[in-house]
């Protein structure tokens, strides 16, 4: 094996080893090019995960917190998100944020790619659903997606495994949707419900958001990466890229990175691929200033770091007067409703949202949420109040489509830096009137369906402050170099040998979890790049 860092340029250098990078590297590996991926985190081990210990729930407030600012691992970088009602959640490791994601794995709808044409808001994508459909199918096989064919909210799709079980909680909520005549369907989940490609089946332990010791959850470190490495891709961990460098002609020619000890190195490359998602990618591009790109690499449009989209979440929790066994089952995957997904202007907003039924909360989480909700007191009444909450709650979230707004940004913080002294990102974000109206609608409908399901009371949090899981739009794709950062296959308009392949390239956000679409896009970009290899550097 060649030494690392290599004195010779590698053919393709990928920055970040999350969901997009894993799919892209696996696909591109068939070219036999010299592909190197640099990841600032390390490999996770199954016995590192909290679910193997009885104190597992407490770890969500410490070294497995969703926020990098709370977690504070060496490999994390701080994020100034004080100017946003939604705080950023992520994870830095091989597999990226799929380590902690719920693995809820819906696709976009066909209409999501044409919101300007259909609804007069947002922008149309330069690609459509038909372009991505084969990659969604491929990704379902690679990630091991469970689900049930025939969902009337989607065109026909292929799913290799049967759906996750509903359990008593899911059945209770499903009956509520049926009473109102509303759509629901078992969730598409990147969780294997039977042995699949060497992965053991889900055992319904309910620890998905803290990592899956079983390996049943499709995090990218257990799906694409082992196969990509077997095909010859090289992955180096604990390498934090601080800057992409350019040559005298303004072409990308490599990166400068810090190793685990903070020592600075340089690695040259013929092609650089950025896969750090909606916060990390603009941070890296904005940190890569040069004579050719004084405002940040590939930023002649001025759009790098602009149009940040989250999914504003409303969480509506139903309190029931009977046990629901909600601690059993995949935490974030049960059933989904898209009754209010497509635009209906009579509702007072454009676009729409999905309802996702979560499971119930564990003993510690119930206590903490009960305190947050003002429903759990200390002292003499404590046990009575706790008994009304534990195993009698059903969590449900509405994932609202966020519309792109150039005022919502990722910039570089003038003071905050990571452990290697690299400027950290600052998030500036406000909820739009459209999102606010959508959240209000979702809260009202959420209460309605929970009541129909038998809830005796409901508790609302909207917007959910810690729900900045989905990070999109900060290096959007498009056909016009004046109004987009990359083209329809992720190639930077300003730098022909620079690609962006993560959620940054999203034009709009849709109203579903984005990971499946991020990976389908990465597979599409890899295939298109392969078809254009002969002329790529001309």
């Amino acid at each position, binding site marked *: 094996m060649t030494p690392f860092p290599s004195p010779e340029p590698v053919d393709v250098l990928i920055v970040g080893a999350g969901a997009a990078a894993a799919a892209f590297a696996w696909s591109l590996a068939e070219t036999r090019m010299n592909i190197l991926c640099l990841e600032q985190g390390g490999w996770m081990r199954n016995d590192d995960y909290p679910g193997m210990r009885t104190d597992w729930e407490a770890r969500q407030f410490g070294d497995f917190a969703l926020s990098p600012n709370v977690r504070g691992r060496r490999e994390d970088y701080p994020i100034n998100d004080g100017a946003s009602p939604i705080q950023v959640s992520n994870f830095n490791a091989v597999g990226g944020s799929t380590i902690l994601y719920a693995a809820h794995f819906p696709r976009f709808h066909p209409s999501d790619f044409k919101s300007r044409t259909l609804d007069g808001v947002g922008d149309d994508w330069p690609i459509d659903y038909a372009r991505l459909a084969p990659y969604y199918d491929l990704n379902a096989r690679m990630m091991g997606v469970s689900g049930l064919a025939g969902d*009337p909210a989607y065109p026909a799709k292929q799913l290799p495994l049967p759906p996750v079980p509903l359990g008593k909680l899911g059945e209770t909520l499903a009956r509520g949707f049926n009473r109102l005549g509303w759509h629901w369907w078992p969730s598409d989940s990147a969780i294997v419900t039977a042995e699949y490609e060497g992965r053991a089946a889900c055992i319904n332990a309910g620890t998905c958001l803290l990592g899956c010791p*079983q390996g049943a959850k499709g995090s990218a470190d257990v799906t694409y990466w082992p196969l990509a490495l077997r095909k010859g891709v090289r992955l180096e961990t604990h390498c934090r890229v601080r800057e992409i460098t350019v040559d005298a002609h303004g072409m990308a020619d490599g990166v400068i990175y810090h190793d685990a000890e903070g020592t600075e190195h340089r690695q040259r490359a013929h092609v650089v691929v950025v896969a750090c998602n909606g916060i990390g990618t603009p941070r890296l591009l904005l940190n890569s200033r040069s004579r050719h790109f004084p405002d940040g690499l590939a930023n002649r449009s001025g759009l790098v770091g602009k149009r940040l989209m989250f999914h504003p979440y409303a969480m509506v929790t139903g309190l029931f007067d009977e046990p629901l066994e909600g601690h059993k089952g995949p935490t974030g995957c049960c059933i989904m409703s898209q009754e209010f997904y497509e635009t209906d202007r009579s509702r007072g907003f454009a676009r729409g949202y999905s309802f996702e039924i979560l499971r119930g909360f564990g003993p510690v989480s119930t*206590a903490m949420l009960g305190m947050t909700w003002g429903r759990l007191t200390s002292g003499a009444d404590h046990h009575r109040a706790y008994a009304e909450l534990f195993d009698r709650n059903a969590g449900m979230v509405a994932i609202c489509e966020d519309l792109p707004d150039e005022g919502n940004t990722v910039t570089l913080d003038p003071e905050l830096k990571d452990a290697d002294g690299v400027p950290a990102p600052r998030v500036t974000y406000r909820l739009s009137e459209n999102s606010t109206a959508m959240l209000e609608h979702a809260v009202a409908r959420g209460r309605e369906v929970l009541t129909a399901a038998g809830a005796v009371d409901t508790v609302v949090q909207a917007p959910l402050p810690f729900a900045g899981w989905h990070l999109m739009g900060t290096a959007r794709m498009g056909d016009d170099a004046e109004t987009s950062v990359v083209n329809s296959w992720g190639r930077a308009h300003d730098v022909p040998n620079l690609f962006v392949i993560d959620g940054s390239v999203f034009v709009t956000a849709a109203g579903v979890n984005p990971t499946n679409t991020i990976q389908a896009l990465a597979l599409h970009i890899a295939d298109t790049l392969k078809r254009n290899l002969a002329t790529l550097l001309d």
Partner: protein
Amino acid sequence: MTHASRETVEPLSPDERAALTLVLDAIVPATPDGRLAGAGTIGVTAHVEGVLRTLPDLRAMVVEGLRELAANARRRFHRPFTALTTTERDALVAEQGFVFVITPHAYVGYYQHERVLAALGLEPRAPHPRGHRIPPSDPGLLDPVRRRGTRYREC
């Protein structure tokens, strides 16, 4: 024992620990039927002390709060805090600001304690590797959804 080593190994003195145990019992008291002990009695004090060991600012706040609690007990009831009745202790604890800060830590320690888990009807074990069994659902639940037909826009 030096002061420095007490800070790193023993965040609280024996008297402070005894008082904290009673404070924790006031936050989560024993169940009315006596089936479960309060948080302090069941052993959550050690959990909270572990937290204080890693958070020096919180430790300082707790030590100061316990000192105030002792002073208030003597001023109002003319006895040490640890000699008060449950009602008297509860009244004083409810007035102390530091109690609100340690309450989440008390809950975390309490609701992951194996005796508490057992009392809640849960197996006192880690979720992995045994997990949970969920019986299959009635597939007929989806019949009304299927009857309503397509929900997406062709485009």
